[in-house]
């Protein structure tokens, strides 16, 4: 699983640049589909709730720091964590200060 967050620099892009940037994501997805790596991808609605502790205290939003909020994820098929990490290096958000967390889904 590739978990995406950060990319705070995107706020400074012009509409034209944003469209171009989105084009890079789409091209990336197309490429991952063509190599049979891509399984699924979703965006997460910002905000949400956090439920915590014995008393099930509910607070707004997962985190206070916006830059730590997960924006979305991909599920990719890869032979190893290393291959998945290689895939993550192509993420178009990296130049915009983006972060990709690469995690392996445990199979029993």
């Amino acid at each position, binding site marked *: 699983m590739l978990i995406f967050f950060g990319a705070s620099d995107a706020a400074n892009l*012009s509409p034209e*640049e*944003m469209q171009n*940037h989105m084009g890079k*994501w*789409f091209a990336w997805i197309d490429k991952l589909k063509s190599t049979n790596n891509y399984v699924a991808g979703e*965006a997460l609605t910002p905000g949400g709730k956090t439920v915590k502790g014995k008393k099930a205290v509910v607070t707004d939003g997962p985190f206070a720091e916006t830059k730590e909020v997960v*924006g979305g994820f991909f599920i990719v098929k890869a032979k190893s964590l290393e291959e998945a990490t290689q895939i993550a290096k192509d993420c178009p958000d990296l130049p915009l200060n983006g972060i990709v967390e690469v995690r392996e889904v445990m199979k029993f």
Partner: protein
Amino acid sequence: MPEHPVQMVDHLFRHEAGKMIAILTRIFGLSHLELVEDVVQESFLKALQTWKYGQLPDNPSAWLMQVARRKAIDRLRKTSREIVGPGELPEQASDTNEFYHTDEIADSQLRMIFISIHPDLKEEDQLALVLKIVSGFSVQEIAKALLTTEPTIQKRLYRAKEFIRKEKIRFEIPAGIELRQRLDVVHTFLYLLFNEGYNSGKVDELIRRDLCGEAMRLCKALTEHRICSSPTGYALLSLMCFHAARFDSRLDEKNDIVLLQHQDRQQWSQDLINIGYHYLNRSADGNEISFYHIESAIAAEHCLAKRFSETNWQRLLQLYDLLLELKPSPTVRLNRAVVLAEMGEVQKAIDSVLSIEKLSSLLKDHYMYSAVLGDLYKRLSDQVRAQAYLEQAFGLTTSQAEKNLIQEKIRTIDPQKN
């Protein structure tokens, strides 16, 4: 949610930005222009953050508009609570559906154009404002397109917006006699915007295309509007089409300028030429004849010739004579002289250039005059004068493409006769 299409329409975001700014400004008022610009920008950011994972909403435009509208209402509620306590928003803010009709969108955008191209604003301020609030360019993109710095553009935008605020400019299309006068200003502006993209050899190719494309898009919107449509607008639009048809053939792969006589006419866009003729016909309505009509007829004449050698110079000369009556400018005289030279009347061409009023100061400031004179003397094999004028032109132009062209001319001066 459908799978994302492989490609979105070119400039979709940029064009949507212009539309959204116009519609929201119409709803919330010109006094909230800054807020509107902000929420539009935020909506695109939200779109990017959620669409990039591969799924688009069914109707991206409506999605964007809805997000922007909600954000605007939220912001206004917040500020109005801070200032005057809880209260109602303007009635129309709750329902924007009536503004979504294509006609209404076009209408809102034209109102934006008339506001931005206010005759009391400086041309450079108009230019910056139109590109920002009508065309959806960012400050950085405007600076790049107009070859200046971001702070300069910020300053121009600030000046223009202050003017709108202080003069309490109304969000409307002028009526009656004022409309005619204002239309003239708008036409001049669009012509300038197009030339900015077409002639400036200093900016990169992509941005130049964008500027020309914007000028054509806005001009088309103008001619399609029930009140703003005019024969002159059609003439201007046809002129742009004829020029744009030659866009691809004007530079070679090394970015050097290809002169009209050497352009590969196969590369000219026959589609754009045909559209140009269509609009030129539409412009023949009524008894109004503007210099755009004549300039378009001149451009059409060039497009009509299959080869450079088949150009009807006689007809072009007549058109330039007509143009000279409507617009007796030094540039027109200069171009007319080139036609004379093509007809074999080189000495006459030189004499007519030399008789241009205030030529000496023009020669000092604009490379075109010395470039043409150098070329004419070259045709007469007057090596000394040709070289002197061409070198002067070389020193004046800042465009590398033009420098290369002039250098090539100097290199090929015929040294036989003197």
